[in-house]
């Protein structure tokens, strides 16, 4: 269909929106994403029965966290569309992109903050983990 949609949307492909976890969405924001949306199948049409419904709950969970940590829950969203709805996909990309443009860049970008961290294991030192 050669539909165009904003180039600032980076697509992460997953086998099912049910694979999306809370921590994936948070990491995207931690790494500087201005907004994140999950595009799952239409409700009731999940090949794995409830994958998209699980994604919906996780998006809501992250929304609540983002509201409390100064980012704003409106920067994350859940959309449902089928694989046959190409025009709707492009429309959602434009819609979300426009919404995020209105909100402006993530507060992380202009704050100058540089919070960081590593994952340690009991047997290794912080230097080894880094």
């Amino acid at each position, binding site marked *: 269909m050669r539909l165009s949609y904003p180039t600032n949307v980076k697509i992460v492909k997953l086998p099912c929106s049910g694979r999306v*976890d*809370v*921590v994936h969405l*948070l*990491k995207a*924001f*931690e790494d500087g994403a201005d907004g994140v949306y999950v595009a799952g199948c239409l409700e009731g049409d999940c090949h794995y029965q409830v994958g998209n419904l699980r994604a919906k709950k996780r998006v809501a969970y992250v929304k609540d*966290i*983002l509201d*409390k*940590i*100064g*980012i704003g829950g409106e920067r994350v969203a859940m959309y449902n569309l089928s694989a046959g709805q190409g025009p709707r996909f492009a429309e959602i990309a434009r819609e979300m992109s426009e919404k995020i443009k209105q909100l402006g860049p*993530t*507060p*992380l970008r202009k*704050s*100058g*903050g*540089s*919070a*960081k*961290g*590593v*994952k*340690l*294991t*009991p*047997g290794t*030192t*912080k230097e080894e*983990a880094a």
Partner: protein
Amino acid sequence: MIIAEPKPIDEIIDSLKDFNRILVAGCDGCVTVCEAGGMKEVEVVASALRIYFKQAGRAVTVDEISLTRQCDRPYTAQLADKIDQYDAVLSLACGVGVQFLAEDYKNKPIFPGVNTCFMGGTEEKGLWTERCQGCGKCILANTGGICPIARCSKRMLNGPCGGSSDGRCEVNKDIACGWHLIYERLKELGQLDRFETPTDPKDWNTSRDGGPRKVIKEVSRL
């Protein structure tokens, strides 16, 4: 297992906002199973904290770790070579783990990241229910394997009370009447005659009424 639930992130932020080097320490025991304080929850809380500090323009370190158990000293000791690099620890273990860390690392502020709720089991994914209140004198042998202390809202020993209606508790219709469950179970077991012998008042000395408790198993001591 011990059932806990994550504290709201804003409450955690309130505890930690003045620190610059934070370690989020999970526990691979009970709180991992009830999805409140295992490595996965450590990742979520640590990431949320880093986002918060970044947007606040702060250069804070928030590292992540999870110990096999925080209620056992050989495992809490695994933080000994790391803890000096931090000025606060957020423990996602139950209240026992938080206190063990506080006892082992006396000069380090340790904050709780979960609310410890009760001893219970997994009813279904994402749903945990209470089964034991640790009264210290188990009477399950006489009650068909259903605990009136944990399952009856009034902890009655000779129930049900007048508030039991259609098998539900008057406290809340979502709560099954513990004594109704006991009756049905004893009927199934052909042991309804147990109701003919009243249970004596319980000695609560073995419960919290006797103050903080300890268990000694002499044969296990070194």
